[in-house]
């Protein structure tokens, strides 16, 4: 069997996997979301530096928790699916 025949054979037996397509789609979306989470951390840092008040620490904690949740969800999609 020549390599060309093997390729043709592979392409003809290739089936569309709904599962992998959805997983890839979720992960691709989550990558952008992860970048957004990091930007929010930086944004909160900049805002807190500009206006330093009593509840800046809780806001920073919420921003980190937000990023943590994004990473956790990404790991869940990556490993549990």
């Amino acid at each position, binding site marked *: 069997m020549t390599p060309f025949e093997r390729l043709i054979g592979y392409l003809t037996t290739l089936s569309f996997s709904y599962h992998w397509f959805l997983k890839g789609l*979720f992960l691709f979306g989550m990558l952008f*979301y992860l970048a957004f989470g990091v930007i929010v951390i930086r*944004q909160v840092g900049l805002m807190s530096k*500009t*206006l*330093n*008040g009593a509840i800046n620490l809780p806001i920073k904690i*919420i921003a980190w928790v937000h990023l943590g949740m994004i990473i956790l969800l990404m790991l869940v999609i990556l490993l549990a699916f």
Partner: protein
Amino acid sequence: MPDIYLAKTEIKETKEPAKSRAVKAETVADKLKAQRTTNPLAALVIRPKKLTFDTQERKEKIILLARRHLITNLGWVLVVVAMIILPRVVFRIFPELLVSFRYRSAAVLIWYLFAFSYAFEHFLRWFFNVNIITDERVIDIDFPSILYRDISSAKIDVVQDISVKMGGFVRSLFNYGDVHIQTAAEQREFVFEAIPKPEEVIKILNELITEEEQEKIDGRVR
């Protein structure tokens, strides 16, 4: 005949009372101490205690901090409530959508996280977009988009004209409006948008202008 001897007479020096010499005029900052706001989430904060800003000078006191009225957040709060309800509604109307429990739970979790991000981002915008009046300056801090900030300020003594724009049912009901401050500084106009009790802000600003003029007359300009 000339006096050869004169008995010493005790001359009591009448000392001026210390109080009358050191008469210190009560400043607007001192007057407003009694009305201090302690709630850090208030839309109108008078003489905040634990608050500083980036370009604040060492002796500069924050007299007032104004955010948009709380009711202006109603729009995005309703959107968040709708986002929370939406998955239940969608899966009730289309039960065959994402039948697999795994996909459905992943989609729902991502959706709720997205709703949380949306709410948090709007809260940040509301909380950090502020207008500040100090005993020396008027400052406008804006975060028009992510990682971009815009701070403009003008000295109180260059303020030329102040006006309020209030109108409409909701604004009258909740007593909030826009305060327009015309200045002779580089930035010609400062707009404090949708701030609560605009008449009180104008009153304080007018008092500060008078105080600044008095300081100029007395030669106490910082």
